[in-house]
């Protein structure tokens, strides 16, 4: 632990106040949902993914912290642009507020548009259509080629941190795109779960000893 692990990919999450950025991150990192307080400044998470180390910056949505944005955007490999599916204004902010902030990120930075709180979304009164979301996602990523989009889908997800819907899928999409695994690596790491199920029959018992 004494030598700082080097991060292979820096992921940041942006979005208006109270759209559920921290809940999304915590759902992925800790695997559970809990009520979050508003984030102060920016919080840093570290997560291994396969052979790689992922650094995740969870940021505060309050405008008064925008002075920090240069710092965490610099050399970001992927940016999650989160908005609340139930509040159209938060979707508009993605363009208006965060588009320019991302200039500091890597040139090939992958931008993922993510709608949150899909569990409380009422389809009949819905203001931001999935089509609009997908459109924005493609506009933000001009260098994403057509073939890739057809294969993997557009970088647009509708998630629920509460019900754990599409959260892991969204992160997997990022990592598959930014840190493609070789087939060999894929076999080694893909099957392994990031959390250990104590009730599950331990089939990889002998392997576990190697863990240091």
């Amino acid at each position, binding site marked *: *632990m*004494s030598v*700082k692990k080097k991060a292979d990919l820096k992921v940041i999450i942006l979005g208006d*106040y109270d759209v559920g950025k*921290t809940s999304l991150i*915590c759902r992925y990192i800790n695997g559970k949902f809990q009520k*979050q*307080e*508003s*984030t*102060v*400044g*920016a*919080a*840093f*998470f570290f997560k291994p993914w396969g052979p790689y180390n992922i650094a995740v910056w*969870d940021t*505060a*949505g*309050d*405008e*008064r*912290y*925008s*002075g*920090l*944005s*240069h*710092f*965490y955007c610099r050399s970001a490999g992927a940016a999650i642009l989160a908005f609340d599916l139930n509040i159209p204004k938060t979707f508009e902010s993605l363009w208006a507020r965060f588009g320019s902030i991302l200039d500091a990120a890597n040139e090939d930075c992958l931008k993922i548009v993510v709608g949150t709180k899909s569990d409380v979304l009422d389809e009949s009164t819905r203001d931001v259509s999935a089509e609009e979301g997908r459109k924005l996602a493609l506009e933000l990523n001009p260098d994403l080629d057509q073939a890739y989009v057809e294969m993997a889908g557009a970088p647009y997800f509708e998630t629920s941190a509460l019900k754990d819907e599409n959260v892991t899928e969204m992160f997997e999409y990022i990592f598959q795109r930014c840190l493609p695994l070789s087939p060999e690596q894929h076999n080694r790491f893909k099957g392994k779960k990031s959390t250990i199920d104590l009730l599950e029959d331990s089939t990889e018992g002998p392997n576990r000893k190697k863990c240091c």
Partner: protein
Amino acid sequence: MATDHREAEQLVNTSDSDLQEAEFVETNEAPGRCDSAVFAKTDDLDDLTLNITNGVIQNHRGTITSLIRKRSKRSNTPRDQETDADLTNNSNPSEQDIANSIEQSELSSELSEDEDVKNGLEDLSLQDTESAPEEAPSVTLIPSASESDYVNSLEWKQQKKHIFILSESGKPIYSRHGSEDKLVTIMGVMQALVSFVQDNKDNLRSIVAGDHTFVFMNRDHLTFVGITRGRESTQQMLLQLTYMYNQVISVLTHSALTRIFKQHRNCDLRRPLSGSEKFFDNLLNLMDVEPGLLLTSVRCLPLDSSVRDIVSQTIVQHAKVKDLVFALIIAQNQLVALVRMKRYYLHPMDLHLIINLINASESFKAAESWTPICLPKFDAGGFLQAYVSYLDEECQTCLLLLSVDIEAFYTLSECCTKIKERLNRYNALTAISNSLQRHSYSVQQCSIGDLRHFLYKARSTAQYTSPELGPPYNTPDQQDRLFGLYHFLHDKVHSVSRPLKLLYHVGQYETLLGWVTQGFELYAVFGPLVTKNIAIHAVNKLLRWIKREEDRLFILSSVTF
């Protein structure tokens, strides 16, 4: 109840002339004294008031800029210079953004409407005359009253202390109780009162109406209003309002605040402040229970000096990083260790803001954080960057590293890992958590009969110590009353018109002794039947006890990088 009590009290002696001074150990050796100050020397209340009337913070202006300039001189590589430029401007674009994005919106209710003013005045006068606080419970039980009903309810009017922040144009910014949205009218009245007096080239300072004291403070286009029916004096309320002002600065910086109002005189400051309400609320709650804010001094976690040395040496060794100004460890609102850059001091008022930051926010417990914070006494013009991380699983011991370099996060994160490792190796974290579990010390440990509680402040180090609250002060009501007694005693001793060295006061339920010297301030609470002689003996004994324990109770050596 409170009034009865106050009347029943009888001032037996308010000056030291009748007392045989010889009986007091007149020492220069005030326990907890230290020549190399750990903190910036604390302001006396008088200094503070002077500061308030001047209306501007003058000390340490531009400290951060000078630190940054020093840095750019030191390193001449192009890359660094680039980041330097980045940093000097760093706060500017953001503040600009904030200021620009603030829409000019009209005050929803016009002040000039007589109707509203009249209503507001009625509200105010109602508040003055209500005099049966004990009847409240029946009202407090109505839970689902809407916000607008709430601010008209008896419960709202009977709150013990109200704090309001409004802009010069009368726009609500903050209210401690009830949503400030619903208080437009009453805030309009407050602003009307303030401007009416200002028209005559004068300043409205306070109004006393029955049980209530209304205190007004104008600073940087903001009006702070404090209304209390507790025992706080006008001076003490001003100090509390100053803390509130400092909290505003801590979020925005003084430069941003002035710029915002320069651009839009009637802007809605709630937007740039959004998300920081919890800091204001928490600060006010702290002020109600934490004597350190009243005494502008800091409580240290009782710790063997050997352990404390290990902690501060660990910080010095592992956090010797460029541009790191302050490194501190805080555990449950108490200071464990502080290491500072040479020539720079941390003011206790700034430290209270830091403690408030940690105390008010759960979000630091989840992960390492990086956040800007402005320390008004250190430099009101700019932000320091704070690295915040808890060192233990239980999230009790918190490490803060304050730097002027916005890029320093990863370096500081490494420092934190090393510090944690070494503190664990020397069992220092266990020692800290043991000390936390022991809850400070009980007054019985001083083995002085009749002494119920005390506050002792070492003036040169701006630190204070006090035992935990035991019976009869084990209920919130009684604690509140005790805190009121301390406010009373503190006010009498520090009275602007007649400051006292010594006050012996016999009340209905307890006898109080306040004693202020060059080196310390002591506020002691005895049982009601204690005689003057016994009290004097007791405090002498107490001073000897504190002297014996000073290594444990105070941080006596100031450690620098």
